[in-house]
C-alpha cells in the first residue's frame, strides 16, 4: 500500500465534506478568536476516517502566535482525541500547513509519542524541524534526590553562622590594623571619603531623625503625663523624659534610622562593586579594601552617629517639652532649668558613647554583608536585607550590654 496513493483518495473523500460536524464547530470558534490577532490563520485539523485508518490533514499556521492562546493546545489535543499509539498509527499530512515553527512541531511530536507516525507527509522545511526533534538528546536531567535534607540544612546553617562570625572577627581585626596604620601615617588616610561619609550618614540624616525624634518625644511625654497626673507627680515628667531619651531612646532611634539609611546604602554599594568587578580592580591596583573602603565607612559612621544622637536627643526633648506644656501646663523655663539637675552628665556621655559604638557596629555589619554579596541580583537583595536586620539586632544586643555594664553610671 503506497501512502501517496491512499492519501490522494482520502483527499477526494475530504472534498465530499465528510468531516466531523463537531470539530467544524470548534474550528469556527477558534477562527473567530483569531480574527483579531494579526494576519495569522488559525491552526486547523481535518480528520478523515477511511475504512481502516484515519488521515489527519492540517492547515493554517501552527506557530507561537496561534498556538500560545489560552486553552488552544488542549483544545487541539481534544480535537484529535486519540492516544499516542493511535496517533502514531494514523496518517498525517502536514503539507497543507502555511507556517510551522518549533512550537507547532513540538506539539505534533508530543502527540505522536515522540516518534514519527507510520505515514507522514512533510515538505522539505518541515522535515528539518522533525529531524531536529528526532535527533534531540536527553530531556531535562532531574537533580539527584537528596536524603536527610534537614540535617544537611541544619549543618549548613551552623557552618554558615560560624563563617559569619569568623568573617566578622577578621573584619574587626583588619579594622584595628587599619586604624593603627591611619594613626601612624595620618596624612595618607582616606580623609575625603571619611568627610563624605560624615556628610551622607550625618548631615543628610538630620531631617528624618529630627522628625522621628520630635514625634516620639511628643508621644512619650503625652502618655507619661497622663499617668503622672494621677499621682500628682507632674514635675517628674522632666526626669522621665530626660533620662529615657538621653540614655536610651535617642541613641537607639538614631541607630535604627542610620542602619536603615546608611547601612543598606553601604551594603548595596559594596555589593554592586562586587558585581561590576570594581572590588577586584581595587585589589589588582594594590589598594586594599580594608583601608580604602571599610575604614572610612566605619570611622565616618562612628564620628557622625554621636552627632546624630545629640541632634535626635535635642529634638525629642523639644517635642517632650512642647507636649508637657500643653498637657500638663509645665512652662518651658521650668523644664529647661530642671533638666540639668535631674539628668546627670554621665548619661549624656553614655548616650554619645553608645552612638559612636552603634555607628561603628552598623558600619562593620554593612561592610561585612556587602563584601559577601555574590555577583547576582538575588544575593544583592538578600545581602542588603540581612545587613539591615542584623545591624539593628546587633545594636539592640549592644544596648543591652551597655545597660548591664553601665548600670551604676548616671542614675
Amino acid at each position, binding site marked *: 500500500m503506497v501512502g501517496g496513493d491512499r492519501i490522494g483518495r482520502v483527499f477526494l473523500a475530504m472534498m465530499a465534506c465528510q468531516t466531523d460536524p463537531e470539530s467544524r464547530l470548534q474550528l469556527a470558534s477558534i477562527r473567530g478568536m483569531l480574527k483579531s490577532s494579526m494576519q495569522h490563520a488559525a491552526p486547523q485539523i481535518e480528520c478523515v476516517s477511511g475504512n481502516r485508518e484515519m488521515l489527519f490533514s492540517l492547515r493554517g499556521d501552527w506557530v507561537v502566535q496561534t*498556538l500560545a492562546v489560552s486553552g488552544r493546545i488542549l483544545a487541539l489535543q481534544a480535537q484529535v482525541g486519540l492516544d499516542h499509539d493511535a496517533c502514531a498509527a494514523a496518517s498525517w499530512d502536514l503539507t497543507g500547513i502555511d507556517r510551522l515553527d*518549533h512550537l507547532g512541531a513540538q506539539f505534533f511530536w508530543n502527540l505522536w509519542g515522540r516518534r514519527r507516525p507510520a505515514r507522514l507527509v512533510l515538505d522539505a522545511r518541515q522535515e528539518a524541524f522533525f529531524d531536529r*526533534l528526532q535527533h534531540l538528546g536527553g530531556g*531535562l536531567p532531574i537533580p539527584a534526590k537528596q536524603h536527610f535534607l534537614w540535617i544537611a540544612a541544619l549543618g549548613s546553617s551552623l557552618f554558615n553562622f560560624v563563617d559569619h562570625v569568623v568573617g566578622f572577627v577578621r573584619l574587626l581585626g583588619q579594622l584595628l590594623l587599619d586604624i593603627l596604620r591611619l594613626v601612624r601615617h595620618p596624612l595618607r588616610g582616606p580623609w575625603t571619603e571619611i568627610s563624605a561619609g560624615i556628610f551622607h550618614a550625618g548631615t543628610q540624616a538630620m531631617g528624618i531623625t529630627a522628625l522621628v525624634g520630635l514625634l516620639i518625644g511628643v508621644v512619650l511625654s503625652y502618655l507619661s503625663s497622663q499617668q503622672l497626673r494621677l499621682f500628682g507627680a507632674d514635675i517628674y515628667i522632666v526626669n522621665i523624659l530626660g533620662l529615657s531619651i538621653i540614655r536610651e531612646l535617642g541613641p537607639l532611634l538614631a541607630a535604627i534610622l542610620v542602619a536603615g539609611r546608611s547601612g543598606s546604602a553601604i551594603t548595596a554599594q559594596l555589593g554592586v562593586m562586587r558585581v561590576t568587578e570594581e572590588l577586584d580592580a581595587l585589589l589588582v591596583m594594590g589598594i586594599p579594601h580594608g583601608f580604602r573602603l571599610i575604614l572610612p565607612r566605619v570611622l565616618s559612621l562612628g564620628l557622625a552617629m554621636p552627632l546624630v544622637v545629640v541632634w535626635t536627643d535635642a529634638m525629642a526633648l523639644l517635642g517632650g517639652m512642647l507636649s508637657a506644656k500643653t498637657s500638663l501646663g509645665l512652662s518651658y523655663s521650668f523644664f529647661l532649668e530642671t533638666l540639668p539637675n535631674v539628668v546627670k552628665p554621665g548619661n549624656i556621655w553614655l548616650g554619645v558613647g553608645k552612638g559612636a559604638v552603634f555607628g561603628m557596629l552598623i558600619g562593620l555589619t554593612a561592610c561585612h554583608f556587602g563584601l559577601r554579596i555574590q*555577583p547576582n541580583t*538575588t544575593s544583592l537583595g538578600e545581602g542588603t536585607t540581612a545587613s539591615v536586620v542584623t545591624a539593628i539586632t546587633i545594636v539592640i544586643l549592644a544596648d543591652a550590654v551597655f545597660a548591664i555594664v553601665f548600670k551604676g553610671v548616671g542614675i
Partner: protein
Amino acid sequence: MTPENMIEIRGLWTTFGEVVVHRDLDLDVHRGEILSIVGASGSGKTTLLRQMLGLEQPTRGTVKIFGVMMDGADAKQQAAHRNRWGMLFQHGALFSALTVFENIALPLREMKTLPDDMIEDLVMLKLNMVNLTPADAHKMPADLSGGMIKRVALARALALEPELLFLDEPTAGLDPESCESFVSLVRTLQQALGLTIVMVTHDLDTLFELTTRVAVLADQHVIAVAPVNEVIGISHPFIRQFFLGARGRRAMEVLRA
C-alpha cells in the same frame, strides 16, 4: 519584486543636548537578510538599535517595525510585536537569579498559555539548537563561560520563534574559536528559521561571514547600504579606514581564500 521591509526608519534625528548623533537618517531592513550596522565608536549604532527596539525614543522621525509605528501602537499591539522579535544583548543580560533553563523558559512561561511539559520540551530543543547539553540546564549564569552566556542568551532570544533578531556585538569578548562557532551557529539558525537579523558589530570576520548587506553609519547618517563588496568600493574616509586598514585587509584575505 521589491523586498518586504521588516524595519523602516525615516528622517530620524537623535540629539543628546547639543550633540547631534543622527541627522535625518533613513534605513530599511528587508525580510530574510542579515543587515550589519557598522560605524565609528560614538556614531550611535547601539542607540539606533535601541531605538528600533523601542527602548529609546528618537528626537524626531519615525521607526516602523513590521510596518507599524511602535510609538503610536496601543499596548496590546506593542506586546504582540515584542513577541515577534528577539534581542541578544552584548553581555547576554541573562537573569542572574535564574538557572539557564529558567532563563530560556521565562518568555514561554510569560505567555501563560503553554503547558509546563511543552515548555520543558521547547527549552531542551532550544538548548540543543545552540549546541548546549541538557547538563547545562541547571547551571547558573555566574557559572557559565562567555561563549556559553551568548549561547544561552541566543536560545532565550529565539524562545518565542521570532522573525526578527537583533544582535548587539554578538562576538565581542569571545575567543576566536567560540567566535567562529557562534557565527556558524547564527548562520545555520538564520537559514533554518528564515530569520531577519539586524546586527551591530565591530568584528570584520563576523561581518564578512554573515552579512547580506552592510549599513555604514558615518557623518550622522547612513552613508551606504549595500553588500560588503560594493561598500568597500565606496570612497569615504571612514570606509577606507574601517575596511581597508591592516585589520580589514587581513579579514578580506580570509574572505577571498
